[in-house]
C-alpha cells in the first residue's frame, strides 16, 4: 500500500506542493534564524577562541563576560606567574578607543594590547604584514573587515566606493598617531566594531589614563596540569578569578543570552517559523486527508486495517517532511554560503541541522496525528453516501 499512499499524495499536485512549501519555509526560517543566532553568539566570544595559545584567562572576580573589563594592578601579572602549574602568563589590555577618521568622523574600535615581548594574544591569521611588525614605531594591525568598512577612507570620487585602509596608512587613535603595519583576519565581534591590535605599552598610551590598566592575564598551563585545578589554585593564591577558555566563552554567551534581547528576538523568529510552517503544512495535510476521506473509507470497507491506513499517512508525512526539510536546510545553507563574505553572522553546525530535523518531524507528527485521528474514527459506511 506504500505506493498507493505516495501516488495519492503526489496525485493532488496543488496540495502536495502546498505541504512541501509550508515545511520548506518552516525548515528554512527555523534553520536560517537559528544559524544567525548561533553565528552571533559565537561572535560574542570570538576573541577568546581566536587567541589559541592561552588555556586560562585570569581577571577581576567581578568580571561577568569578555567585554566587562575591570582593570587590575600590573603587579597581579607577577603574582599569577608565581602560581605553581603556570607555564607562562602574559598581560592583555582590552579597551574601546575612538578612532578619528580621515573625513573627521569617529569610529569606536576594540583595541587589544599584547605582551610587548611575546605578542601573545595576537590575531590568528594575517592577510597582510606580520605580527612582528607591531614592534615598529606606532604600529597597529587592523582587522580586514574593519579596514574595508568602518575604518575605510572616504571615496576619491563623491560617488565612488570607500577606499580600504591598507598597510602604510595612518589613523588617529584618541589623538595618537598609529601606522597600519598589517591587516589580519579573525572572528568578527558581536557589535561589529573594528578590531585593532598593538603592543601592551602602546595600547595603554592610546587609551585614556586610568589608575589600573591590566585587563586580563593570559595563562598557559604546564604540560599535564589539570586546567580547572590550576584555575582554582590561581583564584586561591591571588584572589583573582581564573577561567578556562571554554568556560569564559560559555560565560560570555550566557551573559548575552540573559541580559540582551537577542535570545528572545531570535527565539520569536524561530518560533514563528515553526508555528507558520506547522499551520501551513498541518492545515494543508489535514485538508488533503479530508479530501481523501472517501478513499480512505473505501480502503477501510475493502478490508484495510487501521494500522495499514496509519502506515500510509505516516509514509506520506515522512516523505513531505524529508523533502521540506531538505529544501529548507539546503536553502538556509545556500544563504549562508552566498553571503559568507558579508557581515552576516551565520553558523550551521550539525546539531542545528538535527534540531531543525526534529522540529520538522514534530510538525509532520502533529499534522499526521490530526489526520490519523480523522481516518481512524472514520466509519467505513461513508462509502455508501453519495
Amino acid at each position, binding site marked *: *500500500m506504500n505506493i498507493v499512499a505516495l501516488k*495519492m499524495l*503526489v*496525485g493532488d499536485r496543488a496540495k502536495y506542493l502546498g505541504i512541501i512549501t509550508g515545511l520548506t519555509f518552516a525548515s528554512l526560517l527555523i534553520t536560517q534564524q537559528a544559524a544567525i543566532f548561533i553565528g552571533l553568539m559565537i561572535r560574542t566570544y570570538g576573541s577568546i577562541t581566536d587567541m589559541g595559545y592561552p588555556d586560562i584567562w585570569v581577571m577581576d572576580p567581578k568580571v561577568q563576560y569578555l567585554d566587562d573589563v575591570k582593570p587590575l594592578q600590573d603587579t597581579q601579572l607577577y603574582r599569577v606567574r608565581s602560581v605553581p602549574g603556570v607555564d607562562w602568563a602574559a598581560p592583555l589590555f582590552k579597551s574601546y578607543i575612538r578612532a578619528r577618521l580621515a573625513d573627521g568622523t569617529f569610529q569606536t574600535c576594540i583595541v587589544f594590547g599584547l605582551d610587548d615581548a611575546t605578542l601573545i594574544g595576537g590575531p590568528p591569521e594575517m592577510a597582510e604584514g606580520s605580527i612582528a611588525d607591531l614592534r615598529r614605531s606606532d604600529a597597529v594591525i587592523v582587522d580586514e573587515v574593519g579596514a574595508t568598512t568602518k575604518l575605510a577612507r572616504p571615496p576619491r570620487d563623491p560617488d565612488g566606493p570607500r577606499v580600504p585602509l591598507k598597510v602604510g596608512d595612518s589613523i588617529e587613535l584618541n589623538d595618537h598617531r598609529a601606522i597600519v603595519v598589517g591587516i589580519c583576519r579573525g572572528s568578527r565581534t558581536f557589535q561589529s566594531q573594528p578590531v585593532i591590535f598593538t603592543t601592551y605599552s602602546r595600547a595603554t598610551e592610546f587609551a585614556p589614563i586610568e589608575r589600573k590598566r591590566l585587563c586580563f592575564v593570559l595563562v598557559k598551563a604546564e604540560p599535564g596540569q589539570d586546567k580547572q585545578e590550576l584555575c582554582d589554585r590561581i583564584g586561591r593564591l591571588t584572589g583573582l578569578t581564573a577561567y578556562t577558555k571554554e568556560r569564559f566563552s560559555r560565560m560570555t554567551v550566557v551573559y548575552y543570552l540573559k541580559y540582551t534581547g537577542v535570545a528572545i528576538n531570535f527565539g520569536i523568529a524561530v518560533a514563528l517559523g515553526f508555528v507558520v510552517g506547522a499551520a501551513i503544512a498541518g492545515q494543508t495535510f489535514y485538508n488533503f486527508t479530508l479530501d481523501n476521506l472517501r478513499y480512505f473509507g*473505501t480502503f477501510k*470497507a*475493502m478490508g484495510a486495517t487501521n494500522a495499514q491506513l496509519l502506515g500510509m499517512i505516516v509514509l506520506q508525512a515522512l516523505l513531505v517532511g524529508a523533502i521540506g526539510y531538505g529544501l529548507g536546510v539546503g536553502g538556509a545553507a545556500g544563504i549562508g554560503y552566498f553571503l559568507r563574505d558579508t557581515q552576516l553572522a551565520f553558523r550551521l553546525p550539525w546539531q542545528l541541522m538535527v534540531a531543525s530535523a526534529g522540529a520538522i518531524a514534530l510538525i509532520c507528527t502533529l499534522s499526521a496525528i490530526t489526520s490519523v485521528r480523522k481516518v481512524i474514527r472514520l466509519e467505513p*459506511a461513508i*462509502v455508501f*453516501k453519495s
Partner: protein
Amino acid sequence: MVAQRNMAVHCRGVTKTYGSGDAAVQALRGIDLEVREGELMMLVGPSGCGKTTLISVVAGILDHDGGQCAVFGRNFLEMAPKERTQYRGRHIGFVFQAFNLIPPLTAAENVAVPLMINGMARRAALRKAGELLGRVEMGNRTGSLPAELSGGQQQRVAIARAMVHNPRLIVCDEPTSALDHETGHHVMEILRSIAMNDGRSLIIVTHDARIFGFADRIAKMDDGHIEKVVNSAGDL
C-alpha cells in the same frame, strides 16, 4: 449461529437506529432477509427506506443495534474489529454508485488495491488485476487513469476491483444510477455473467427499474422493513 446451509446472508429481526432521544431515526425495523449462495438479490424501495443501511450492516461496515445478521455463517458483531475488517477484506467486494476509484491510480492499480490490502505483492497484484480487467473488457485500458475513462468504463473497473480478490459476496450500491440505459445494461450483463461465477452472491441496491430483470429475487423495502420478496419485477 443463525446461518443456514448454502446461505450467504441470513438476517433475523435486524434493527438500526441513528441518533438518540427526539432526534432518533429508526432506519431498520426488524429486517428478515436471506440471500442464497449464487443468488442475485436486489433491494428496491423509495429513498430513505433503509436499503443502504441494510447493505452496510450486511457488509459489516455498520453495526446494527438488534437482531442477528450472519454472512456465510459468521456474525460480524461477534468478531473483534480487526478480524471483522480482515473477514470483510477477504469475503466481500464492493461496487459503489460513485465508483470510488482512486484518481491518481491507473485502472490496474485501482483493481489491485484489494489484493495489496490482503498482503499480495504489488507486481503479482497488478498481474491479476490485468487479468480481471481483461474479463470486463478493459484489458486495453489498464494504464488509464479514472479521469480518462467514461462512466461505464469506470464502473467496469470498479466491478473488476470488487471481484479481483475472489470474494463470496459482492454488494453494489446503485451501480447503474450514474450511467445511461445502454451502459447500465452492459454493466449489469457483466455483473450477471462474470461476477456471479463460482457461486458468488450479489446484493444490489437500486432504484433503476430497467435492471430488475437481472435479479433472481427482489426485496421491496419501505420504512425500515422488507415489505415483500418477489421472484420477478412483475410481482412488485
